[in-house]
């Protein structure tokens, strides 16, 4: 029975099939999610309409969705930079935290500048901290061939424990009546608003363009892509693999670090352990679903932000746990992953 069906390579892969297959798989994901919701005696129609309402139903909600999209966009760009080189950086979470830490040192202790200078220095410090934190895995990989997936992941937990230590220990706000939180940033260390949302969204848009230009129109960006495609080709072409790897991973971490800066200065008002909140992991999915193409990152991030915002809305209105968003995300990913084979292969039934 099983041998009756087999995969046959398509003669040519056209864009149309690719898009068709992707769309079908997203529909399939929503279908499976509906079944799951029905099993839990929740009307899927209410849930999905509630999500759309929660994400785009009012100007306030649209602003909330934008605020959620910004960290996803910037972190996904960071992840994309590393993934292009087939360097599996799944340490976005830790790099965001360390970036936020870098920004907080200035905001809390060395803030004797005017607001603009201070914010610029904070962004720079966040990028450097995030970048250097990511570099640990690159250096270990270059010199000891250590698997970067596990190292970056372990560094997430280490960063989390470190920030927890600060929050419960030396940086604990004495004025917070024993509540474990870090003191709020002074006003001049907070990102200003534009159209009701912190300027992070402008930074995100600029970064998309910059990363696009860097990856597609500069020599270094091209070298990163070549190393990703074939390390032997890169070696043969005389590319300095160590130097390019270090640059690429540093940039990847620096972008994640900037996310940390925006989250602490623009959203949270201070450093806290919750600042990354799973963004580093969601960004991996976004980078993958965007097919590692910068413009798609924008679209997919906004959709995912809508998903997150929508699911936190239905949590209060329909009492559906907001982890529904995680399930739906992974279902979309499963379906897209399963569909991939159908873009290059088709099923053939034996007669």
């Amino acid at each position, binding site marked *: 029975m099983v041998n009756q069906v087999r995969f046959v390579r398509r003669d040519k892969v056209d864009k149309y099939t690719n898009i068709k297959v992707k769309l079908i798989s997203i529909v399939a994901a929503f279908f499976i999610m509906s079944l799951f919701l029905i099993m839990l005696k929740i009307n899927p129609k209410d849930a999905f309409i509630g999500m759309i309402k929660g994400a785009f139903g009012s100007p306030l909600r649209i602003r909330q969705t934008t605020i959620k999209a910004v960290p996803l966009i910037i972190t996904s760009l960071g992840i994309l930079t590393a993934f292009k080189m087939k360097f599996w950086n799944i340490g976005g979470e830790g790099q965001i935290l360390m970036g936020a830490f870098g920004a907080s040192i200035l905001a809390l202790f060395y803030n004797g500048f005017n607001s603009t200078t201070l914010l610029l220095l904070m962004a720079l410090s966040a990028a450097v901290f995030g970048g250097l934190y990511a570099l640990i895995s690159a250096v270990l990989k270059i010199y000891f061939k250590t698997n970067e997936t596990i190292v970056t992941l372990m560094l997430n937990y280490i960063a989390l424990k470190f920030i927890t230590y600060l929050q419960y220990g030396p940086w604990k706000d004495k004025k917070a009546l024993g509540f474990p939180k870090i003191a709020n940033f002074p006003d001049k260390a907070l990102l200003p608003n534009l159209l009701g949302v912190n300027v992070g969204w402008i930074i995100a848009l600029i970064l998309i363009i910059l990363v696009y230009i860097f990856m597609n129109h500069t020599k270094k960006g091209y070298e990163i892509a070549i190393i990703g495609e074939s390390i032997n080709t890169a070696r043969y072409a005389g590319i300095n693999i160590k130097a390019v790897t270090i640059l690429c991973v540093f940039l990847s971490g620096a972008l994640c670090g900037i996310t940390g800066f925006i989250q602490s200065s623009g959203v949270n008002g201070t450093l806290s352990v919750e600042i990354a909140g799973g963004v580093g992991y969601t960004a991996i999915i976004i980078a993958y679903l965007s097919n590692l193409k910068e413009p798609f990152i924008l679209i997919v991030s906004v959709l995912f932000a809508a998903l997150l915002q929508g699911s936190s809305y239905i949590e209060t209105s329909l009492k559906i*746990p907001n982890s529904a968003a995680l399930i739906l*995300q*992974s279902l979309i990913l499963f379906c897209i992953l*399963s569909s991939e*084979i159908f873009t290059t292969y088709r099923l053939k039934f034996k007669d």
Partner: protein
Amino acid sequence: MTSFLHATIIAGTPLFLSTLGEILNEKAGNLNLGVEGMMLMGAVAGFLAAKGTNNAFLAILCSILFGCIGALIYAFLTITLRANQTVTGLALTIFGSGISSFIGQNLSGKVVPDRVKYFLSPIKLPLLGDIPFLGKVFFTQDIIVYFSYILAFAAAFYFYKTRIGLNLKAVGENPYAADAVSINVALYKYVNILAGGALCGLSGGYLSLIYVPAWQNNITSGRGWIAVALVIFAAWNPCKALLGAYLFGGLDIIGFRIQDGFISKYFLDMLPYLVTIIILTLFSFKRSKKNSPPKFLGLPYFREER
């Protein structure tokens, strides 16, 4: 000291179970990064079953079953549909953590029923349990710990002394060659990945039913990932995995034990993760032929393109 070592074994057991689960995956040539997800699925299912049925046996069975379901998704995607293994594994982890916190939403802080707890409490083995020191540490444990001892040796026997173990090795090293001598590659992969999922589910169930034993969100807190690293530390050898798991079990609980204010608890909590990186680095550096990964690890097998 005795009680510390006793607790080390308990903390190490879930790590061992999931490490062995990942070894089964990797021996079949599949890098499964969904260990954490399968553990979470097993943990929540086991806990829910314990609450619902009051029956320890059913609870454990449910853990195993849910681990298998997670593994089945992964296996179908990566074997039959040849999806990218790294991303599928990550998706499985996200799926598992989503499912577990979705289902476990209202369970936070609830404890395992006494009847189940009693059934899974330590049992002193006759004779062996009377050995001074060792008896206390190794042979006054719950049934799953005993099961894990047997499992370590059974797995070693399976990998190194049986025909099917040898075939499994062939599947991981070179599926094309294995297929040529009429080994059913897909079947070997499916069976071993499902067995691996069962172990990961059991490991999750161990956490929620015995180790904690109550429900808390994200109960695994990265243990699945440590297991993935432990596989490299153990060089794909089940007996070394047992030792490695106990070592990390010790690191896991050291933060609880040493609380004299000399060094912050949070720094001690970093230890398992930090040591993982250090050990991984040391082992990657001096990689010999004997402890290198299966050649086709992480690569899909296209039978049609032989």
